[in-house]
């Protein structure tokens, strides 16, 4: 019974390794193919939006995978391949947005909030009257 249950769970959630790359798309040079896979994993599929082109079965994703491999075969560096795609589709195709002027807020906001929160906590704690040694037990008793 338990065993069947785990098999069902596995079948439901065990698809993490599925990729859309078809054998005939792959490059012969395994080093180049690995680079193509790395690049494909950070490029967004424009049709399904939150999948990478490496994961997506959409025809447009396939076309983009082929272009990535073509550029690599033509001798482009990883950055040049990315620039080729970004030049056509904009920064939106990058699953991880680059750090630049219009994304600075996006990247820095967590740190800004952290500093504000720590500052607020510091000010709040400093305002509390320093309890005197003898008072502690009394305070606890009062609260209870």
């Amino acid at each position, binding site marked *: 019974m338990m065993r069947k249950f785990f098999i069902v769970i596995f079948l439901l959630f065990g698809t993490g390794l599925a990729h859309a790359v078809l054998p005939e798309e792959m490059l012969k040079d395994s080093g180049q193919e690995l680079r193509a896979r790395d690049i494909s994993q950070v490029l967004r599929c424009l049709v399904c939006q939150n999948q990478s082109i490496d994961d997506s079965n959409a025809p447009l994703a396939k076309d983009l995978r082929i*272009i990535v491999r073509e550029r690599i075969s033509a001798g482009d560096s990883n950055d040049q391949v990315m620039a080729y795609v970004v030049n056509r*589709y904009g920064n939106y195709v990058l699953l991880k947005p680059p750090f630049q002027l219009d994304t600075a807020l996006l990247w820095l906001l967590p740190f800004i909030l952290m500093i504000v929160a720590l500052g607020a906590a510091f000010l709040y704690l400093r305002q509390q009257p320093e309890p005197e040694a003898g008072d502690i037990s009394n305070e606890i008793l009062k609260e209870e």
Partner: protein
Amino acid sequence: MQLRMATVLPLGLFAVLGVVLAMGLRHDPKVLPSMLLDRPLPEFDLASLKIGAPNLKSSELKGKGVTLVNVFGSWCVSCRYEHPLLMRVGKDTRFKLVGIDWKDAPQDANQYLATYGDPYAQIGTDEVGRTAIDLGVSGAPETFVVDAKGRVRLRVPGPLTPEIWDKQIEPLIKESEKAS
């Protein structure tokens, strides 16, 4: 007073967050700015869908008034939705309407146009989808307004509607007419 600050501040922050998120709901993530805006139309030279007709070349679209480049496919459902509008504006002589048949079998496209009508002055076929990627197309239909200088002035992802036509495309055509 101290207590009031402690109640008002979180509520205030919540209201600000609510407004920001409400604005986010109105923003359609599918509508992206085109990389091509105010840049020249990328080079292409596509075989015609009609046997014997000349290729659809980007170089020949320059210097001849406004061109509307419509990316479509017989497989594309929302293309059917905008087709009546294309049939209507295809008769307009102020601009040239050309089609790019994207990732489609030519016989299917010809069948499609025979059924629903052919609004295009010229049609190029892009079976491999290379030109569509050069144009930054993310799905069909997609329409580009190209001015007389061969620069892309507008990208409309998704089907054209009378509202988009009146508010975004018509002004560009008028502007271009005045300039010439």
